[in-house]
């Protein structure tokens, strides 16, 4: 039996949640918090969103969406166009290709792997921006941004996991 229109629409809306949540994370990094700590450097929240969904629901956040979110980040953030897009695309590709390794593993393993992947991602971002701008970007804030991203990972994963449990458990 074919499901009714309402059921299908409900499923459709639920399937939009990973992308919407990641875009929301992107906008959240832009909000002026006016806290001294976050003023200069905000954690790379969209990176975590893309990583999480690439492992647990790669069907709902495919490569092209990661690319689009990265591009949106470049546009809103005023960074060179395409840099963030490429970084998020590669993060999605790598995480989705290795997702069998993560399923059923402990959280510490996921965190450790995120640390490796985020280091690669932020180093690539640094390299791209340096090449495009034509001057060496100060690496100290980049390192700080990386550490901050790493520290925020458990909290954000918890939030995303709750979101997945609430909306996407059986669709």
């Amino acid at each position, binding site marked *: 039996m074919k499901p009714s229109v309402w059921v299908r629409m409900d499923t459709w809306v639920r399937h939009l949640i990973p992308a919407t949540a990641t875009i929301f994370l992107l*906008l*959240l*990094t*832009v*909000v*002026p*918090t*006016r*806290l*001294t700590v*976050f*003023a*200069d*450097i*905000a954690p790379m929240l969209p990176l975590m969103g893309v990583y999480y969904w690439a492992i647990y629901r790669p069907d709902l956040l495919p*490569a*092209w969406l990661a*690319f689009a979110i*990265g*591009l*949106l980040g470049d*546009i*809103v*953030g*005023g*960074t*060179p*166009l*395409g*840099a963030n*897009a*490429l970084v998020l*695309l*590669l993060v999605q*590709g790598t995480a989705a290709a290795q997702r069998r390794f993560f399923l059923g593993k402990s959280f510490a393993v996921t965190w450790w792997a995120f640390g490796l992947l985020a280091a690669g991602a932020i180093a690539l*971002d*640094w390299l*791209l*921006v340096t090449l*495009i*701008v034509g*001057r060496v*970007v*100060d690496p*100290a*804030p*980049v390192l*700080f*941004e990386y550490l901050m991203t790493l520290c925020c990972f458990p909290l954000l994963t918890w939030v995303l996991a709750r979101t997945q449990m609430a909306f996407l458990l059986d669709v």
Partner: protein
Amino acid sequence: MKQSSAAGRLATLRLLAHRFAFLMLAASAFALMMLGKADIVLVEQTRVLVVDALAPMLEAMARPAATVARVTSGVHELANLRAENARLREENARLMRWQTVARRLEAETMVLHQQLNVVPDPDPAFVTARVIGDLGSAFGHSMLLAAGSRDGVRKGQAVMSGEALVGHIAEVGVRSSRLLLITDINARIPVVIESTRTRAILTGDNSARPRLNYIVGNPAISVGDRVVTSSSGAAFPPGLPVGVVVSVGEGGYRVEPFARRHQLEFVSIVDYGLGGILPFERAPPDRRRRGREE
């Protein structure tokens, strides 16, 4: 048997298509980097359009954030009430002395102006706008403002917070604009050391303290010197306070900006009727056009 091999082939084909799409996306990312580097008008217009479309959402998100920030700073202020009071009393005493000096100088200046028939500086027109986006990132320092071309904002205008220079307008949409802070890696501000009149270019590098480059004139710059804008290049009106020199060591001359980035909620976009720092909107110089005709 036949069916399963067909399914297998289909799966292989799908995998190949998937890989191909991935490679295409990566290639288009590189293509976009090239396009962006070439400074094409279309790229800038697209950026502006997207930011314009997002502006109402960002503004809605900025308001609760401002409320939270106000509450936290309120708690912080209460905790430091005594120390703050003592500091203010001391500062007040110092400023009172300055006030006496300033009054005397003001009277003197007025007399001199009258004797020399000085034409007074025009009063600037300004627009005050809310900060709706603060792009805290190691790769770029800019802010989004909730005012655009319909409010009279133009590219290159100086942006100030109180008396201090914050940056300039880099992109303008209909209802939003991008403010490039003086600390951004792309920011170049012609400045002058207030006491020695040494000219320099203040170059941002995405750190909190921009650097003084291309120093012309008396190179005796010391810690504590005030840095103000100069009229070089007719980009900014002269004399807007920018910051104070904080280090003169190995890393070059570093300037601590007066504007506190994390405290900015509203900024003023000031129009002095000057060309602005970005000459892109002007026609190309005559020489180049003539060269093409030949």
